């Protein structure tokens, strides 16, 4: 339905950010979010749609904390 992946903001210029996806840098529209340099943003169709709550590496660890919190 909607391909989106996280990348790291390396610079900001107006409503544009340069975002690094493991070495591939893309100019991304930031009209939907307010990221800072160093933040991870979720990018869909060249637009940042969210500032990620945690880094990619922490993602799966965080997932299990969430599961635990649900007490299922």
């Amino acid at each position, binding site marked *: *339905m*909607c*391909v989106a*992946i996280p*990348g790291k903001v390396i610079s900001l210029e107006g409503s544009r950010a*340069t975002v*690094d*996806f*493991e*070495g*591939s*840098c*893309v100019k991304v529209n930031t009209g939907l979010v307010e990221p800072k340099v160093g933040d991870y943003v979720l*990018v*869909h*169709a060249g637009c940042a749609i969210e500032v990620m709550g945690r880094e990619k590496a922490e993602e799966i660890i965080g997932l299990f904390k969430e599961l635990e919190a649900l007490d299922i």
Partner: protein
Amino acid sequence: MTEKITMAHGSGGRSGADLMEKVFAKHFSNEVLDRMEDAAVLDISGRAAVSTDSFVVTPHFFKGGDIGKLAVCGTANDLAMMGAVPKYITCGFILEEGLAIEELERIAASMAKAAEDAGVRIVAGDTKVVEGKGGLYINTTGIGIIPEGRNAGAAGCKEGDAIILSGTLGDHHACILSARMGMENDIKSDCAFLGHAVEKIYAAGAEVHAMRDVTRGGLGTILNELAEASGVDMELEESSLPVRPEVRGLCGILGLEPLYMGNEGKMIAVVPEKDAEKALTALKETPEGRDAAIIGRVTGKGEGEVIMNTPLGGSRIVDMLYGEGLPRIC
């Protein structure tokens, strides 16, 4: 103003002769070509391999190569995959009006260098000019000699064989896509001649059942082709597939799969299990094969099924590529 190709260059008259002299004869000169006869006369003995391919890539110049280098390496690689030592190559150019002659010359120079590196001589050529907007298309045909005792072919895979991949997946395709879509990165095309790597494998004393360069359609497609031609099933380990992080990143953005992206300087070698380490070590000693890895094995006779084992312990069937592998967003 820069000099451009016009219809007159294809007319067979003075302009055509000029172009021949200034561009092609200058860069491709060798004793066979320099005779300027209607056909090249070659001394060949033994089993010969012949292959032809056409090259239409845009942009003409990209990181890591250009259409000229590609046209020589691509055809020479097809010969090398049959165990042949490439010897001769011919090239036909179709040029569109408006192509800068300087650009053509750079491409010719690059072809000459690639031919020298691969040890092949350009022995015949042709140029035609058509209406258009500065495009350029190259067809190359290559001839190679297969040394005694070599017998590599798509149908040669056998139960227990190891499948060796010579390096990272998707580099060429990712490079071209980045150029076309204006993405900034350091992804280089892996465009390279693979014959030296092949010779290393044979020199190490490894028996080779099948080889194939990983070009259009990507690894997924060529393994299906090999498995079907040989009547065997294969098993791959996803975690062992080498992919550069920046290529993985680009694939993520565009919704593409490295497994189906083309390379221009990577190959698969299917070798008996007993020779796998030998062949891998030999490959790793070459610049083209330094990231080589054993990625899977031939499991046994079958209908050509290629199974991928995923990192979490699941498995899935890998089919060939259908269509063009377009970026997907939504």
